[in-house]
């Protein structure tokens, strides 16, 4: 007789129900149903979605990365300043962004492995450092995003908005990586228990470093999208992104303790957040009440989805 289960598994699918309900409710608003508006919502959410997908790797691995917001800001500023609106500079700017994102992630990963301090504190520190670097570089908006980047963020391909397509491709890639590759399994294993994963022969340090690199690269791509949308290198552009990303990841059913979660849930949660903003604006709800409502929606969604267990990081 097989050794039977001890408890029913909690459903992690709550976010899809919440999203479906929100979509249905939003469908009652005439302006909402316009295709243009839907494309808007998807486009507006693209940068956050990319960052949140990256953060999903980090959180699944039982870590957290607060530095991505400021890293995004730095990349927005540098890309716009270097490119200065010239499409010819597109390639170098792209290389710079990805290189910087990966590099910064690698440094965070290295520090994480060497110093063994809680990643929340570590990345709180690197966030502060990055912020200092951004503002040392410039304290006001600089440069211009090349048209190609603007197209990436805001343009259309065969009538479809490009940024959401990009998100779709990246999310699909991330999903396959997490569920179908050895690396993805190792990420979940390390998140499930670092010591145990090590005992299974996994190079936990390498896995940890890699997820930080992924997170850094996602900040780079997110930064490109933000740069494209804003058109200029605005130094505060990334502020707060890290928290939004974390909220989306956890609302999407990924446990802060690591080991459990999905990219699809994250994307659904990002859409829910974007939808909320859009609908509240369309409904002309006063911004103060909007804030209250958004808070309540986050509370409601986490209560429905409950990827928790009374622990801070659970």
């Amino acid at each position, binding site marked *: 007789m097989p*050794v039977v289960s001890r408890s029913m598994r909690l459903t992690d699918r709550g976010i899809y129900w919440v999203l479906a309900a929100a979509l249905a409710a939003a469908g009652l608003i005439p302006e909402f149903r316009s295709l243009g508006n839907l494309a808007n919502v998807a486009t507006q959410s693209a940068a956050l979605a990319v960052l949140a997908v990256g953060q999903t790797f980090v959180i699944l691995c039982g870590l957290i990365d607060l530095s991505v917001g400021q890293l995004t800001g730095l990349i927005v500023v540098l890309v716009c300043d270097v490119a200065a609106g010239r499409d010819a500079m597109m390639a170098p700017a792209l290389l710079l962004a990805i290189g910087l994102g990966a590099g910064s992630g690698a440094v965070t990963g290295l520090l994480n492995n060497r110093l063994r301090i809680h990643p929340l504190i570590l990345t709180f520190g690197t966030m502060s450092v990055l912020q200092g670097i951004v503002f040392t570089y410039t304290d006001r908006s600089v440069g211009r995003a090349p048209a190609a980047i603007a197209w990436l963020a805001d343009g259309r391909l065969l009538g479809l908005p490009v940024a959401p397509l990009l998100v779709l491709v990246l999310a699909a890639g991330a999903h396959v990586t997490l569920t*179908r*590759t050895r690396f993805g399994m190792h990420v979940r294993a390390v998140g*499930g228990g670092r010591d145990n994963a090590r005992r*299974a022969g996994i190079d936990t340090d390498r896995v940890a470093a890699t997820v930080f690199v992924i997170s850094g690269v996602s900040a780079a791509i997110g930064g490109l999208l933000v740069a494209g949308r804003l058109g200029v290198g605005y130094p505060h552009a990334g502020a707060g992104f890290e928290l939004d990303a974390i909220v989306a990841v956890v609302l999407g059913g990924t446990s802060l303790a690591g*080991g459990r979660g999905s990219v699809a849930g994250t994307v659904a949660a990002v859409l829910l957040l974007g939808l909320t903003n859009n609908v509240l604006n369309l409904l002309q709800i006063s911004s103060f009440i909007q804030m209250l409502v958004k808070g309540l929606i986050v509370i409601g969604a986490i209560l429905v989805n409950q990827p928790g267990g009374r622990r801070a990081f659970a």
Partner: protein
Amino acid sequence: MAFLEIRGLSKTFPGVTALDGVDLSAEAGEVHALVGANGAGKSTLMLALAGVLSPTAGEIRLAGVPVAFGTPRAAIEAGVSIVYQETSAISEMTVAENIFLGREPTTRMGLVDRRRLYEETRRLLDRHRLPLDPAAQVGQLTVAGQQLVEIARALSIAARVLILDEPTAVLSLAEQRNLFDIIAGLKGPRLLILYVSHRLEEIFAIADRITVLRDGRKVTTVATADLRQADLVRLMVGHEVRERIPLPAPAAAPPLLEARLNGSPPRLEVRSGEILGFAGLVGAGRSRLGRSLAGLDPIDLRIDGRPVRLRSPADGLAHGIVYLTEDRKREGLFDNLSVLVNATAAALPSLSRFGVVRLAAERRAGAAILGRLRLVARSLAAPVRELSGGNQQKVILGRALLCRPRILVCDEPTRGVDVGAKDEIYDLLLELVRQGVAIVLISSELKEVLALSHRVLVMRDGAAVREFTAGEASEHDVLQAAMGPLPGAA
């Protein structure tokens, strides 16, 4: 030179010398047992061999080649596999994912080949007759199930050295026998099996040679054939096991605790001064019953003849029902807290006044009970996670005893405990019984259940199937009742 040569191996932790210049040699083809009291250093030695801990000094040679496994990965690659004393599987992943973690089969495209992963797991489990579902989440398995995952994982690594650190501590008889069959089948000229256990019968049944450790040093290595059990005990704990005084008869009073059961007998009754033993296979539902007696699951319950409803273990405690869990790691230990705090955790109401803990009284009470249990620890303030497995068990047993139970439900109370301490625990249980405590004893060590219980209740598939009284039960009868009518032969 022997296949495995360990020379002068030492390991110190802050404040503790766990291993002190241990020499050991073992040959391929043998089952080499490692015995010693709790805290003797057996697990530490095995962890060093498996690359989990780096030794402070000394040398390990495998087939003549010096090895220094900095990481478990290096050990695995060298063909050393281990079943850890504490389960090390990842709860969030499935059985199959855990077994092949780090060695997942891949398709030509580099993706994990899930079909092969599950097929190979299926085959492995079938080959060794391990009752596991490859797709089950490990977090939902019982302790025994998790232990089987560990074993399957170790077996899946084509090993030169297979280390088993108390693999049977949480297994019930059928699984234990199965494991011995597996070990017998694996035994071959190229494989060394290192076996750690406190169950001496097992050791005498399967080991070719025995190494005894005491206080971090090697005492001796002897061939099993040259040794009697009593000698081994003396080598391990320094004195012989005492003869046990026979069970006192329970008071002829009405039952202290009654509960409704599925099956027959339809009711469970324990009197003051009585030990009711539970036998059954893994997953028979003994633990579940024990948990409901403690207030973790709803059940029809009478105490002193009055019906009560327990909503939580706190309710249970209020009625004098104390539960000793089998799952030490998940719901027994406060890992990072001190030994003392662990021991007194459930007795705080009696150790405090106006919500303030009387620290001196707490310390006295804790020291007294842990002293009786012969705890080995650096200090009462040391975090409990630093203790050896058996000593951790003593701490949670001490916690239960400090609550002054009227009804004690103990689930595998001697899990991982050395013979000396086991004896001490038996004496303690008997003393409690003499003081009028009613005890429900759940144990997978059939000998233990039979020796200690006034009556033995056998469970199968979640239901009670039979009750034996002390004299009438034989090991054979109990086992047969537990396994049920077998198709074909017995």
